[in-house]
């Protein structure tokens, strides 16, 4: 069950948290295995999986050819027949290559079979720009997956959440798409030694506040927290809420906060248009309609392919300063 995220004696990185979750689950359940490109000896280009192949062998940490559709499809079949694959899609940008397997197969098998077949698999992948990797290695495509019934979508924003949510994902009986923020792998945070999981659909109030609600996902949680600090100096008390899973979405916690504060900004690194900010903003606008003092503000990534040049790339993603500025405007303090 969920635990307060701040209480722990040790700090580990986000990458370590992911690795620990995998290792613990693989020890617990021999059906769990990892499939993906350069996951074994290389431990992925991000080195997130380093050491796992040494403990579990290449049977359970298996390098694949560069065949995202193929190995995701293989995972679907393995999941239907008793295994619990964790598939590694090296960059979230490559999800479109495996889209048919995820959207038309994994997400639908349980329903189409009237509940007879199950697909307990995890697709681990990532999101996030500002790494100077250009348009095909920088996307945050979680909105696409969140739109498809049958999938669950997880967006951890701290080492603590990453570990607890990944363990839940692996134990879930459904296909779960798990997005890690590439820029967060080295971020350290408190993670207790002991076993814990975090339930899906339970938002985490990362910071309490009274004047405005900042709903932020994944990479944008730190941005929102930094914005809240800036705002504090201006005498604006911001509440930061991290939904942690877009599907299922903890609409209640989000709406209650917006009702309390009367103002809300939704910050997410996916493109703004037809993205996650649209869903959450309309959930708030509907649920807190009679309590809102200002329109809900959406701040997603710009609706442009991610540019390579640092001079441009940094403009495309919400920053603490811009979020704080928007918050001040919403609070009538400009």
């Amino acid at each position, binding site marked *: 069950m969920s635990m307060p995220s701040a209480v722990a004696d040790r700090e580990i990185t986000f990458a370590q948290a992911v690795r620990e979750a995998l290792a613990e689950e693989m020890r617990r359940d021999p059906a769990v295995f990892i499939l993906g490109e350069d996951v074994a000896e290389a431990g992925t280009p991000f080195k997130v999986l380093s050491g796992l192949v040494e403990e579990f062998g290449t049977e359970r940490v298996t390098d694949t050819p560069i065949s995202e559709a193929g190995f995701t*499809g293989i995972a679907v*079949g393995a999941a239907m027949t008793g295994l619990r694959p964790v598939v590694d899609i090296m960059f979230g940008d490559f999800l479109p290559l495996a889209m*048919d397997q995820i959207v038309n197969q994994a997400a639908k098998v349980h329903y189409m*079979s009237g509940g*007879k*077949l199950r697909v307990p698999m995890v697709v681990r992948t990532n999101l996030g720009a500002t790494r100077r990797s250009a348009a095909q290695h920088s996307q945050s495509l979680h909105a696409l997956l969140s739109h498809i019934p049958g999938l669950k979508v997880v967006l951890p924003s701290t080492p603590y959440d990453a570990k607890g949510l990944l363990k839940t994902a692996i134990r879930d009986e459904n296909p779960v798409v798990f997005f890690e923020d590439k820029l967060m792998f080295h971020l350290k945070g408190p993670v207790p030694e002991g076993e814990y999981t975090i339930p899906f659909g339970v938002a985490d109030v990362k910071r309490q506040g009274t004047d405005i609600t900042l709903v932020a996902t994944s990479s944008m949680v730190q941005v929102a927290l930094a914005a809240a600090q800036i705002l504090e100096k201006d005498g604006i008390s911001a509440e930061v809420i991290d939904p942690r899973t877009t599907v299922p979405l903890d609409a209640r916690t989000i709406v209650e906060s917006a009702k309390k504060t009367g103002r809300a900004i939704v910050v997410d690194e996916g493109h703004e248009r037809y993205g996650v900010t649209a869903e959450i903003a309309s959930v708030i606008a509907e649920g807190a309609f009679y309590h809102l003092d200002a329109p809900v503000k959406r701040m997603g990534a710009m609706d442009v392919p991610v540019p390579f040049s640092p001079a441009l790339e940094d403009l495309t993603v919400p920053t603490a300063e811009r979020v704080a500025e928007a918050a001040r405007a919403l609070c009538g303090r400009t």
Partner: protein
Amino acid sequence: MRRTAPRTETQQADALQGVAREQWLAMYEQMIKIRAFEEQVNELYRGAKMPGLAHLYTGQEASAVGICQALRPDDYITSTHRGHGHCLAKGARVDLMFAELLGKVSGYCRGKGGSMHIADPQSGNLGANAIVGGGAGIATGAALSAKRRGSGQVSVCFFGEGALGQGVLYEVMNMAALWKLPVIYVCENNLYNEYTHYSEVTAGELRARPAAFGIQCVEVDGQDVRAVYATTRRVVERLRAGEGPAFLISNTYRYFGHHVGDVNRAYYRSKEEELDWKARRDPLAILADWLTGEGLADAGTLEEIERRARAEVAAGVEFALAAPYPDPGEVDQHVYA
């Protein structure tokens, strides 16, 4: 048109030794059941009693039956939009299939899947699939799972030759070959992708496709259930011995349209071609001739089998017509397990 299988009579005779008369009769019964089943599907469609469409397997019966007879009950299959024959041959019940086709809650998928999505884990059927090539990943994954679990199961991936257009098939064949997975890719070449002759959209030799991954390929006359059965048995033996995947080309023909409404077919194939296959290469006739020729069955026995099969099919239709639709509350059940 390729109609003979490149196997030697001796090999086939060897493989068929010890196959009892009862088994041949059982295959005959399965084949005729599939045929009768599809006749009823067509009737239901024409009588506007079946929602949507269906793709009939008629003409291809020997392929599904010969292959599935060579499998264990717990071996896996994945099937296609033209899947009724595969499902029945692997052990699905006629009544529950009809119920599914009519969208009834007693159907295999509680009416949620329909003709193109029959799944029956109990008989090893991991689901028909409406995405061409959609079963390729699943079947290969099931083989991986079987191998890891050491269960000795094999996995059979049925698809039409049209699926050779789907890149994912090559991706998974590569991995199946690398990891020596016990999967048979069964390419049922009925000559047409919908309304287009396969040769117009398929470059090179079919057999060269699996060869590209070092996968052994066998080709069989898909109208001759004995050939299909004998070949599959040999292939399955090799798979269970851990020798890695195989590719089986089953040359066959669909008698009717691509789907039940595809009635005017002259623009893509001739009436003569259809009549020729029906007259000379009918899988039921071929087996019946052999059974009677060998003195394993007389006309009466075969008629009795047919009567039984037709009765089962008729009862299945009755059952399905009378069965209830799912409750509205079902609509958002089974989205998540």
